[in-house]
């Protein structure tokens, strides 16, 4: 399978990522996904499109560490973390977390933990194009 940590400009397929995870282990009994998408409204203003930039080496290292920690901390079997960068249109995919576990509760808990950690610790920044101009979102939503 592809390396389960990826930062890319291209879109991704949730179905394909789930299929890849199913191929990892026959012990997986539940897969939980979080898919973040681009919305057209934020902090009281319209949003026309988003641009994400990242500090490549550090962002990838941090995502690798999130995956490793999740695999240690929770009773789960597989984790995939993907994030897109570059220009993203409204409604498009931004981020995907996929967690596979023997049982659902561990997968739910780990998936929520992974997206929270990603938002807090991965050096990625979002710029919104709004009627007032282009605005960097440099506070945690």
């Amino acid at each position: 399978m592809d390396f389960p940590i990826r930062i890319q400009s291209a879109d991704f397929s949730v179905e394909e990522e789930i299929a890849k995870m199913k191929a990892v282990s026959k012990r997986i009994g539940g897969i939980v996904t979080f898919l973040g998408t681009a919305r057209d409204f934020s902090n009281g203003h319209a949003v026309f499109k988003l641009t994400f930039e990242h500090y490549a080496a550090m962002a990838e290292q941090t995502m690798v560490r999130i995956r490793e920690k999740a695999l240690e901390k929770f009773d789960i079997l597989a984790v995939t973390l993907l994030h897109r960068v570059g220009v993203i249109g409204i409604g498009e995919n931004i981020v995907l977390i996929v967690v596979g576990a023997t049982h659902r509760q561990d997968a739910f808990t780990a998936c929520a933990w992974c997206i929270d950690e990603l938002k807090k610790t991965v050096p990625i920044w979002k710029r919104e194009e709004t009627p007032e101009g282009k605005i960097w979102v440099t506070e945690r939503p």
Partner: protein
Amino acid sequence: MTIRFFAHLKDLAGVESVSLPLERDCPLLQLISQLEETIPSLKGFTVGRGIQIAVNQVFIDKTAIIHPGDEIAFLPPFSGG
């Protein structure tokens, strides 16, 4: 030694990165003063306001010593996800 900027700091600096000549080890705060003299538009924006600083992709605090060849990055609060 290279200094990198991201998000609004890159817009303020007007460049993605800058190289400052550094012949010997230097305290981070001294380097910041030198940076703000080189790029005055960054004055007051490189410390506080949730800005974190990384050296060679590792977070450091204000007491850090910078070495020639280091990569310094000024990181505004993250907004991925």
